[in-house]
């Protein structure tokens, strides 16, 4: 009975957005408020060339930036896990810090570095003496480079788990069979890692397809649109073209569902490859010999692009009263005024509190729901299957699309949810449920059912098994799931951007607005302070979950 109530609750969370989107994509609202069925939105979609341009841009953008992060993060992961390259700790440090840094901060930093006044073009002009720019950042290539750098740490994290779990004897067996190093890499190492690499690529491709920050901050100013920014612009237009945006969204949902289906198949295949490892295995790093210093350049490059350069840029921007080239003489303008503004203003304080409350409440509620859901699903309880399928539905929603859907839902509700931070909390819970579920589901699977059966035999019933046996044993999984969601929620931008009212602004929304107003110095100062705070949470996450990550993502 309770189980069915619980299923009802989950259905109530995940189904309305889907239903609302479908409904408004097929309807048109007249000024007097009446709605009627129409195929007009879809017809418009197909007749406007804009949809095809954006779809094309989306695909090129996602594909290319996936490749950038795959090559950078994958190379670093292989070096760190399988060779004796120096600076391994630096690679880990880089990754941890990047976990908690809001994307908008990276984007701001990179758009400065690669921008007109930034050091790249500045150096170019200095060296060649020309007045041209070498690189135009507000283009598709600019977007690709920045998005690629942003996801390189994730590539590193997921692929390093793959390489760590790989059995070195597989490669040694090939060498003993007479294969050269090159033959071994081509015929064994790469083939064995291929399913995992493919799974990561598809995962990253989906993330990039759903990405909003880079397209909004880099693409929109240069009039390069992708699907997510189109949806955003359609609802932000006056009057909002909700039906049109919904039709756009429905198409995206279909594309992403198809991709997710393939992702599921590939990662199962990857798991099968990963199961044949032996015991008695001791990782034996490949000796790179003198080349190890040459290879360390890749580690340093990764450090530079994901941490050092953005950090320098942020610091520079935060102490400058306005954006200007990095020149020695400009140092005389240096001021801590931006930090002063951020630290003393009540507005910023309220932003911080709102963001922390929203992130913490969302993470807590999500983990409670998914603890139950993961338990019922992993133990194949009656209804467990239904729960499993309901909980993953939000995966098909890009943040922007979920935002549009919830906006519609909130406007139809009889009580005022719109404009409060609870709408954002609701959005986060729906958005992050699949992630929480991965932690709890995998965690429960690791706990032998006999541990619960022993409690049952000792006379315990449902709730006391849950609270006395399961929760204590799941504590690490619950903690890393909580931190993971907390970190994502506190830097998520697209959902709050659509859902926040004047009194429920979060840090990333505020940074987006400041950015739009050209108050780059304050964005940088605020972002730096925020990143320091979040890095502390990032370290905690890393410490607790180093073991759990590989298992949870199955790649």
């Amino acid at each position, binding site marked *: 009975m309770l189980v069915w109530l619980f299923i009802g609750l989950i259905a109530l969370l995940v189904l309305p957005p889907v239903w609302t989107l479908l409904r408004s994509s097929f309807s048109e609202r007249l000024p007097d408020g009446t709605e009627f069925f129409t195929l007009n939105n879809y017809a418009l979609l197909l007749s406007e060339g804009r949809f095809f341009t954006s779809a094309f841009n989306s695909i090129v953008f996602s594909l290319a930036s996936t490749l950038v992060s795959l090559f950078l993060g994958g190379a670093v992961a292989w070096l760190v896990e399988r060779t004796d390259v120096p600076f391994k700790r630096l690679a880990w440090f880089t990754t941890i810090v990047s976990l908690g840094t809001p994307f908008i901060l990276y984007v701001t930093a990179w758009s400065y570095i690669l921008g007109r006044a930034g050091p790249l073009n500045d150096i170019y002009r200095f060296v060649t003496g020309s007045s041209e720019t070498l690189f135009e950042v507000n283009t598709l290539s600019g977007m690709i480079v920045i998005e690629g750098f942003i996801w390189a740490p994730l590539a590193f994290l997921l692929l390093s788990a793959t390489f760590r779990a790989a059995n070195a004897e*597989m490669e*040694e*067996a090939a*060498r003993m069979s*007479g*294969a050269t190093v090159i033959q071994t890499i081509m*015929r064994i190492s790469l083939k064995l890692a291929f399913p995992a690499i493919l799974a990561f690529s598809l995962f990253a491709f989906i993330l990039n397809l759903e990405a909003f920050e880079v397209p909004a901050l880099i693409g929109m100013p240069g009039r390069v649109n992708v699907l997510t920014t189109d949806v955003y612009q359609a609802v932000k237009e006056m009057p909002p073209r909700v039906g049109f945006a919904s039709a756009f969204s429905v198409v995206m949902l279909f594309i992403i569902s198809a991709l997710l289906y393939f992702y599921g198949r590939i990662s199962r295949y990857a798991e099968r490859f990963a199961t044949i490892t*032996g015991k008695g*295995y001791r990782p034996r790093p490949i000796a790179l010999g003198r080349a190890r210093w040459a290879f360390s350049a890749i580690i340093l490059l990764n450090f530079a692009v994901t941490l050092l350069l953005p950090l320098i840029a942020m610091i520079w921007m935060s102490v400058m009263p306005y954006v200007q080239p990095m020149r020695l003489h400009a140092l005389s303008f240096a001021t801590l005024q931006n930090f002063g503004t951020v630290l003393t203003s009540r507005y910023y304080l309220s932003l911080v509190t709102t963001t922390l409350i929203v992130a913490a409440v969302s993470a807590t509620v999500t983990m409670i729901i998914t603890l139950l859901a993961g338990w019922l699903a992993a133990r194949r309880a009656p209804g467990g299957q239904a729960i499993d399928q309901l909980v993953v539905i939000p995966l098909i929603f890009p943040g922007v699309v979920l935002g549009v859907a919830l906006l519609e839902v909130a406007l139809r509700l009889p009580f005022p949810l719109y404009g409060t931070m609870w709408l954002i909390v609701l959005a986060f819970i729906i958005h992050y449920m699949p992630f929480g579920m991965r932690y709890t589901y995998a965690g429960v699977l690791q706990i032998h059912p006999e541990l619960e059966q022993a409690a049952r035999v000792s006379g315990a019933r449902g709730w006391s098994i849950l609270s006395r046996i399961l929760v204590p044993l799941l504590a690490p999984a619950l903690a890393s799931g909580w931190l993971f969601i907390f970190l994502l929620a506190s830097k998520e931008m697209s959902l709050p951007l659509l859902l926040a009212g004047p009194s429920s602004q979060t840090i990333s929304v505020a940074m987006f607005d400041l950015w739009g107003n050209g108050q780059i110095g304050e964005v940088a100062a605020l972002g730096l302070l925020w990143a320091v705070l979040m890095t502390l949470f990032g370290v905690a996450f890393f410490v607790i979950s180093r073991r759990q990550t590989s298992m949870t993502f199955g790649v």
Partner: protein
Amino acid sequence: MAEPSNFLSVSGLEKVYGVLGANRIGLQPTSFQLPKSAFFTLLGPSGCGKTTTLRCIAGLERPDKGTIRVGDKLVFDSDAGIDVSMDRRQFGMVFQSYAIWPHMNVFENVAFPLRVSKDRRFSANEIRKAVGEALDTVGLGGLAERHATRLSGGQQQRVALARAIVRRPDLLLLDEPLSNLDAALREEMRNELRRLQQQMGLTTVYVTHDQSEALELSDSIAVMNAGRIVQIDTPRTIYFNPVDEFAAGFVGTTNWIRGEVERVSGDRIVVKTDAGSRVECAATASYSPGDKVSLAVRPEVVEIAPENAAPAPGLNEIAGRIVFCGFNGSLTRYQVQASDATFQVYGSPKAGFKLGDAVALRFDPASVVLFTRPAG
């Protein structure tokens, strides 16, 4: 051509991984030779350096010092700077995890060494024939097309073996190949391995920590401890004449008695045990009265008799009481509490001793192995 008596010759092999206090972790200088077609086993507890030795021979690990010669090929010589890379040594090797590549089927796994062969290109026909033969030899005739992820542990083991022998290598290296199998399968594979090795005349270096495996399979055994070989001999000699307390204790079950030499008369030594009884032993080395010694007595050489049985002249006799008896079908295992020690002895399954019975333990002085105990 190399002498038949030293087809594989390893000398002064040394590999130090690091230093821990006064000890060097890794392999201390090690030498041994073995003839063609021999089955040679490195036996010792976990961490004693067996795998390191094997991996040095294979070329997977680069030794610090020493030479390794196989047939008339010098594959490693630290002084001359010779280090033939592992893919050119052409040895067969079976790994502890089997290392069956999951992205290939059985046929492709076994064919791999032929496909990457450098000295000679094999035609598709030759490959099919060689792989077929190798699979038949290991008893996997019908499974060529089976996918590697659909094999049981025992089958993976056989595929690994087929892959190792498909090139008919000069040397076959096996690192604990049976340790991942369950008990019944392990027995079966043990027989299979020995049959295959003899049938093909393969010179084999085998690594294990399981003494019964080593005793049953090998022509000769090297017992290793803490990075050193302590004894190289035939299984029989290793078992009945271990050179030191470690070898005696590690291989088989041993009853230990501690004592002091009381007198030496001709080929007999009389030891007064710590508990005060007297045990005679055959003199295998020179001892003088007052030497502290340990006596090793194998359970197999001890006869268990009723307390009041007629005395048997020439045998040692120790009185005791049965504190444990376990019948396991092929024999009955007793623990007998005597004043010197608790003895482990085997009786015929038909003997009717019961828990608490007073018994006499008898054993031949010639079967006692005597070791000097370090002072202190």
